[in-house]
């Protein structure tokens, strides 16, 4: 299909817009022979090119500068946040170290207790299932006792609604 005249204008204008003002200057146009030839014969596209160049130059001439106060406030805020993040990271690191230490000590104490129960059971001639259940109860006991105490404490507290009654 043969390109229409409108297509040629559209193509020329797109080339101008995408190339920017430097490329539309006379000496650079030689690199695009088609555009140069089109501009020579088309006054409206030539005007578009000239207007585009002016628009881009005008656009570049509008200075929007950050004020000193904005920059220093930003720098201060960034430093403050960096410090916060560093402290957060240190706290996380401490928590992680504590978790590892607790896990390790739990592992070691479980192993020692297991051996201890085994040794006592051997001396007392107990069946292995008996001392193993005893070991399990011993391990679970602190949690059970704490849970029971907390439940008992909750039951002893007066209901909330009572405290607001006059």
């Amino acid at each position, binding site marked *: 299909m043969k390109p229409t005249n409108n297509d040629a204008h559209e193509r020329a204008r797109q080339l101008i817009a995408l190339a920017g003002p430097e490329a539309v200057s006379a000496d650079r146009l030689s690199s695009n022979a088609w555009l140069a030839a089109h501009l020579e014969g088309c006054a409206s596209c030539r005007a578009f090119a000239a207007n585009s160049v002016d628009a881009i130059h005008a656009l570049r001439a*509008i*200075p929007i500068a950050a004020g000193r106060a904005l*920059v220093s406030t930003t720098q201060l805020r960034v430093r403050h946040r960096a410090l916060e993040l560093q402290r957060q990271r240190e706290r996380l690191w401490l928590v992680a170290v504590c978790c590892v230490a607790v896990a390790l000590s739990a592992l070691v104490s479980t192993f020692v207790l297991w051996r201890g129960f085994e040794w006592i059971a051997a001396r007392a001639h107990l069946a292995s299932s008996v001392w193993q259940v005893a070991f399990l109860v011993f391990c679970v006991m602190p949690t059970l006792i704490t849970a029971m105490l907390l439940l008992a404490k909750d039951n002893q507290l007066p209901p909330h609604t009572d405290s607001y009654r006059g």
Partner: protein
Amino acid sequence: MAQESTEIARGLRRRDPDLLDRLIEQYQHRLLRYLVYLTGRRELAEDLFQETWIRVLERGHQFNDKYAFSTWLFAVARNLAIDAMRRKQPSSLDGLMNNNDDDDAPFDVPAIAHASAFDLTLQREQGEHIAAGMQHLPAEYREALVLRFQEGMSLEEIATVARVPLGTVKSRIYRGLSALEPWLRGAPL
């Protein structure tokens, strides 16, 4: 440039505050200009400017040194701008267009030195027209024009920042420039 990006990436992973100070100094005008054009409001742009650098600090490890730092920086700023506008008005970048009701003109056109009185007046007038025209353009066109002609970014870089296909970038630049043309000829201010 690759060397510079690698150094920046390394510093950002360490959250080096001195590096961030340097980057803020280096990119202050470019970033603010981009945000002012994107949002059309100086005050919001300044808030986003600060938020952008905080985000750069927090998410610095995500910076890929294969790209230029400015490309990533503008992408971060853009996301924050969109989030800010969504909080205010649930829509996309198009929502930024409807915020030109403020009285304060974000684009200040200064007097230009080293030119004749006539040139000065002409340039100032052109600047005013373009500034007014920019405010009436859809935000995505403004963004494309600023990144292309003020920041000198390549079309590919703009596509990365705006997260749109290359063809869309080309069309936005063309349409934006075409829409700006009548303003240069002295269209209604």
